[in-house]
């Protein structure tokens, strides 16, 4: 059989298969899920810097998607984070590290109503630690074009956070955030699909880290991000390349660029492997100060602190200039038609010298992290 006629026969088979109930491709069509899906996950996270084992997180999670009444679906997720370890109170100073232990409970519920070419989802989320509570609501609307090749997405959310640190630096401090989203997903070819998302968030309230010494941040933060994603299917290898780029900017003068590439390779008999690489680079927030301290007060006070003790300062290394890389490998196995188990191991490293587009912040120790995830997904 010649190549063109094989292609035509293949298209005919796919077209015939699409007429079977439940086989229509979900690509961009707004249709409710047909089956209940249960997901179980477990994360073990550990990070460290030279000479200091920092934070350990163990987090089991549960996810459930249940279709009902033909055009509806409810999705619920829950996670419990057991967090323990040590965290520097300024920069990456080992001597200043304070011990901590916490348990975080978080969950969300979203109800979606599907129409012929659109859907609307309303959701709520909460997160609770002994010193931090957050509640959020959201709405997400999707519209799909007549040819099912373009989907427009619009979203809005609002979060209310309350902060009560154990050291009582503040009591019942509030932070409220409004976020908006607009996005478009477009089928480019039978093997390519792309997405552009714009998100914008405006936060007002308490943004400082109460456990960092000399941490006084602005009481507002406006954030914007542009996310570009492109997925490509390679017929010759039956593999998928998933790529993304995100530009980030905020009112604290932080600018960031994040690149991700993942290769998903089926191996046969239900097995697949997926190596992933991620790179992130950012500059420092305008009020971050390098670890050079006041000659009179000493660490952690920045030079000239006494002349302006109420100024904006932060010694939080997360707001410094650095580059960060992640390498990970995921292995998945479809045990049967309805059950998939997977495991992934990731290594993350954050270094000042890895920043691209400028100099990294001086005097900050590298941060290394290792995270292991295992998951099980079953459809009923």
């Amino acid at each position: 059989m010649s190549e063109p006629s094989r292609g035509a026969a293949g298209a005919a088979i796919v077209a015939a298969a699409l007429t079977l109930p439940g086989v229509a491709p979900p690509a961009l069509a707004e249709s409710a899920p047909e089956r209940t899906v249960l997901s179980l996950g477990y994360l073990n996270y550990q990070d460290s810097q030279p000479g200091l084992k920092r934070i350990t997180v163990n987090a089991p999670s549960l996810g459930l998607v249940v279709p009902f009444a033909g055009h509806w679906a409810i999705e619920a997720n829950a996670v419990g984070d057991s967090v323990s370890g040590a965290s520097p109170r300024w920069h990456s100073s080992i001597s200043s590290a304070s011990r901590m232990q916490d348990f975080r409970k978080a969950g969300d519920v979203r109800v979606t109503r599907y129409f012929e070419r659109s859907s609307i989802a309303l959701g709520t989320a909460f997160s609770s630690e002994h010193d931090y509570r957050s509640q959020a609501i959201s709405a997400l609307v999707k519209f799909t074009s007549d040819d099912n090749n373009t989907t427009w997405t619009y979203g809005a959310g609002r979060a209310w956070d309350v902060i009560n640190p154990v050291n009582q630096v503040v009591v019942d401090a509030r932070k409220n955030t409004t976020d908006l989203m607009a996005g478009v997903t477009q089928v480019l070819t039978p093997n390519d699909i792309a997405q552009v998302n714009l998100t914008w968030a405006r936060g007002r309230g308490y943004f400082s880290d109460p456990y960092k010494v000399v941490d006084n941040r602005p009481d507002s933060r406006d954030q914007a991000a542009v996310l570009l994603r492109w997925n490509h299917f390679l017929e010759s290898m039956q593999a998928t390349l998933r790529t993304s780029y995100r530009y980030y900017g905020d009112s604290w003068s932080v600018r960031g660029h994040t690149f991700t590439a993942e290769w998903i390779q089926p191996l046969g008999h239900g097995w697949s492997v997926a190596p992933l690489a991620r790179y992130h680079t950012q500059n420092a927030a305008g009020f971050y100060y390098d670890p050079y301290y006041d000659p009179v007060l000493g660490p952690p006070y920045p030079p000239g602190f006494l002349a302006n003790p109420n100024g904006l300062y932060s010694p939080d290394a997360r707001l410094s200039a650095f580059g960060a890389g992640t390498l990970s490998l995921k292995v998945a196995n479809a045990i049967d038609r309805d059950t998939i188990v997977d495991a992934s191991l990731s290594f993350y490293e954050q270094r000042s010298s890895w920043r691209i587009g400028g100099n990294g912040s001086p005097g900050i120790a590298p941060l290394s992290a290792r995270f292991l995830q295992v998951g099980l997904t079953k459809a009923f």
Partner: protein
Amino acid sequence: MSHTRTEPSSPTRARLRPMLLAAGLTLLSLASGCSAPALGPLLGLEPVNPWEKGNLARPAMMFDTNSLETRYLEHIYTSREAASGGSGVGGGGCGCN
């Protein structure tokens, strides 16, 4: 003793009006089944037909393939880097150490 029902103040109503209008228009467009504009013709793309979407329907080609895994990763990176956002709305905050 008489009880007087108080109406929302004018500034409150003024703030609510555009939100209610947007919500009403959204619900109307959803209920009427109106479709969204196709972007492909503007970009000069050949339309992809339903019978050509077998590969696009593969789970690996979806943008949100595993909700729990995605949440873990976003939480880790938001806790360790200054940048966030781009993929959704309405997530709860945390006092991440």
